[in-house]
């Protein structure tokens, strides 16, 4: 389950770089059965001009991740998602790697560091290091990326206008602690108009689900959804941890100017090509410890994602993770051709889907769902209450919820992240009070509202097996750590069996 050298207690991470790096090497060779060439093949460097096949499989510790490119194969030569159109040698694919479910695992970052001595454009000073002011050749200056897969995200403060309206924050923000130097000094920090937070790359692919709009009302905001000024379409509100971008166009423009350090804007042709690629790509785990995830009547894997309608609410349509219902009862024929371990694993996945949907626990103080929308605080729900979109596990409504992952007292302790003090100027925050300590204010960095501090947009749950660690700040080292976080946060009382069933379920998505 857990990789050697992937530090569980990240407080110790800085003290263990050598061991961590060695562990990463071991992991790399374990995957790359064909030796170095296989490891090279795994990593997509910008500008290689490879052909992106229609079906592409990569192994990971839980099985195989498959990408499916509708209309593929695609010659990536000259394609702006794959070419280093940047000033720093990067392309989009640098942080959105097929083998990592179109995100980037921390293990892959470590492999790259070791393979290139830290020379890969991934480690660009701008956001591939803890801060550009640090000595760039040293591993310690890239510890957040290497240990937890985190990229520096620099947000404008006060926030840029949102939906054409000026944003006037109702809170002040001070830097309590700045271990990396990117929230203080002459250039950085709120006083200079910038706030740096550190986040995991969110997976691209399966985008029709993240852009889908099931209803034209947002229950968390108590408002109709805003519309795209260009197309008039309703906006899903499900992109980026802080939802600073509503559309793929806004998102890629932001990515171009930041991650790619482009000195010009993307052209319309480039935008079209990137969008077309993002919209035709589907990614999901294709095999797991129980064999193929679309075998024995199950409906896992990317082909189903390609063909299904997006935006369905599991509670009124196809149940969330109902893909694995057929594995609840395994036929005699199937038993005859499967190993006992595979049978047991499939049944565990099927139970995990039920635990996800039906095993309730008491959720409290989760701003976004317990505050205004009428459910009350606390309320009893299962995982799928928030992760409610059929086949994707993101939120059908705009999914900004405060789970506590980035905000004290619920967040894990991380001495290597900046810590901010938010002071609400009007009403206090309903649960944290007037003063809030947070590593990442999340949605509040876009809306300027103290009520939104700590809210993070729910992600896609597909391809999890390929892209540890989890949560926006990489605080859960593996799938078990995700379950453990919920167990601690909401005092759930899952049995050991239920925990393992959830982990097994998540490993085949």
């Amino acid at each position, binding site marked *: 389950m857990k990789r050697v050298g992937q530090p569980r207690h990240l407080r110790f991470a800085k003290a263990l770089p050598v061991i961590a790096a060695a562990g990463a090497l071991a992991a790399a060779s374990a995957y790359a059965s064909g030796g170095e060439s296989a490891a090279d093949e795994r990593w997509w460097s910008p500008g290689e001009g490879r052909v992106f096949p229609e079906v592409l499989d990569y192994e990971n510790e839980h099985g195989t991740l498959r990408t499916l490119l509708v209309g593929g194969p695609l010659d990536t030569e000259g394609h702006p998602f794959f070419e280093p159109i940047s000033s720093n040698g990067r392309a989009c694919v640098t942080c959105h790697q097929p083998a990592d479910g179109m995100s980037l695992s921390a293990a892959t970052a470590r492999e790259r560091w070791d393979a290139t001595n830290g020379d890969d454009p991934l480690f660009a000073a701008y956001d591939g290091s803890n801060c550009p002011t640090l000595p760039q050749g040293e591993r310690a200056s890239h510890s957040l990326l290497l240990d937890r897969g985190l990229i520096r995200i620099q947000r404008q403060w006060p926030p840029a206008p949102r939906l054409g309206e000026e944003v006037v924050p109702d809170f002040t923000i001070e830097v309590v602690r700045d271990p990396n130097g990117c929230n203080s000094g002459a250039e950085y920090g709120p006083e200079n108009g910038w706030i740096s937070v550190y986040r995991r790359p969110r997976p691209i692919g399966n985008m029709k689900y993240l852009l889908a709009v099931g209803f*034209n009302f947002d*229950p968390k905001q*108590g*408002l109709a959804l805003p519309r795209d000024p260009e197309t008039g379409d309703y906006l899903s509100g499900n992109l980026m941890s802080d939802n600073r971008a509503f559309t793929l166009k806004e998102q890629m423009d932001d990515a171009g100017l930041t991650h790619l350090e482009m000195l010009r804007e993307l052209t319309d042709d480039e935008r079209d090509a990137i969008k077309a690629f993002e919209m035709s790509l589907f990614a999901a785990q294709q095999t797991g410890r129980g064999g193929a995830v679309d075998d024995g009547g199950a409906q896992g894997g990317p082909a189903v994602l390609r063909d299904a309608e997006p935006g369905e609410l599991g509670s009124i349509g196809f149940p969330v993770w109902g893909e694995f219902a057929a594995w609840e009862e395994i036929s005699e024929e199937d038993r005859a051709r499967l190993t006992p371990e595979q049978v047991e694993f499939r049944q565990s996945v099927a139970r995990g889907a039920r635990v996800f949907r039906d095993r*309730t626990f008491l959720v409290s103080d989760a701003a976004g769902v317990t505050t205004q929308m009428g*459910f*009350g*605080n*606390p309320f009893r729900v299962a995982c799928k209450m928030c992760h409610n979109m059929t086949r994707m596990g993101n939120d059908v409504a705009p999914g900004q919820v405060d789970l506590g992952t980035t905000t004290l007292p619920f967040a894990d302790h991380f001495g290597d992240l900046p810590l901010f003090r938010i002071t609400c100027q009007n009403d206090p925050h*309903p649960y944290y009070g007037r003063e809030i300590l947070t590593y990442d204010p999340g949605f509040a960095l876009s809306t300027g509202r103290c009520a939104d501090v700590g809210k993070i947009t729910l992600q896609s749950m597909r391809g999890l097996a390929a892209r540890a660690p989890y949560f926006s700040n990489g605080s859960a080292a593996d799938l078990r750590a995700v379950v453990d976080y919920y167990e601690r946060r909401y005092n759930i009382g899952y049995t050991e069996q239920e925990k393992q069933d959830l982990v097994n379920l998540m490993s085949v998505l």
Partner: protein
Amino acid sequence: MKRPLIAATMMLAPLSAQAQEVGEIVSFVSCPVYRDTDNGRKSGCWLVRDGESGKQWDVSQSPHKPNWDYAVFVEGRVADQGDEFCGAPVLEPVRTSRLLDHRCPRHMLPPEGYPGRVFIAPDRYLTSLANPPEFEGPFGPRTFYAFFEFDRDFLVYQYSDFIVQQAAYWIEAAQPRRLVVTGYAATDPIEVSGMELAESPEIAQSRAEVVVLALSRLLPGMEIETRWETGSQPIDVPDADTIPGQSQRRVEIAVEF
């Protein structure tokens, strides 16, 4: 859509804390108690106690449920139901409005053998974009009413959001000349459980503005005039569910042809 259980005349009956007959209205302020029943999602119980009569009530059917950190202003009608769900007789229809200036200690009871209620999606459930409602003419002048929690301007899920959404679909089909949206606030003080309660005057305007913002997104290009009024009085319309106080805390969307 939900039909009011109570004849319209009852709505205008005087408030009385002692009233306990079926259909009578009770209103008081109480700290809420959460009873952690588990009958699937959203099956927990909310209990409150009327300090004057000493009676405990089940208010779990409020469209905006309590937060255990704050007192709630309860307005509800005694229902013809026993205490078998949550351990107290039921108020329904009922409203619980959070009073954020009055903190309460968090209090939770175990199920103690009570099952809670299996969650059933309410009738006022947003329609999905895939299945929009169809309205047929002839269309003429009409007023829609959306309702709010005490002193709040939030369009609550599975109640007011539905009303505004459905109004927008109707208006889209009817193609009127313009809309006049008027926000109301119940600013005349009332005495409840020894407290004086009155909505703030600004809430009338912000209610109107919230509804106008929602409508302008649902109906781009529609001409909408925004108005607001304080000193709101009860009216008799079905979606207030026979709760007079609820009917005062409203926005009217007048459709003009």
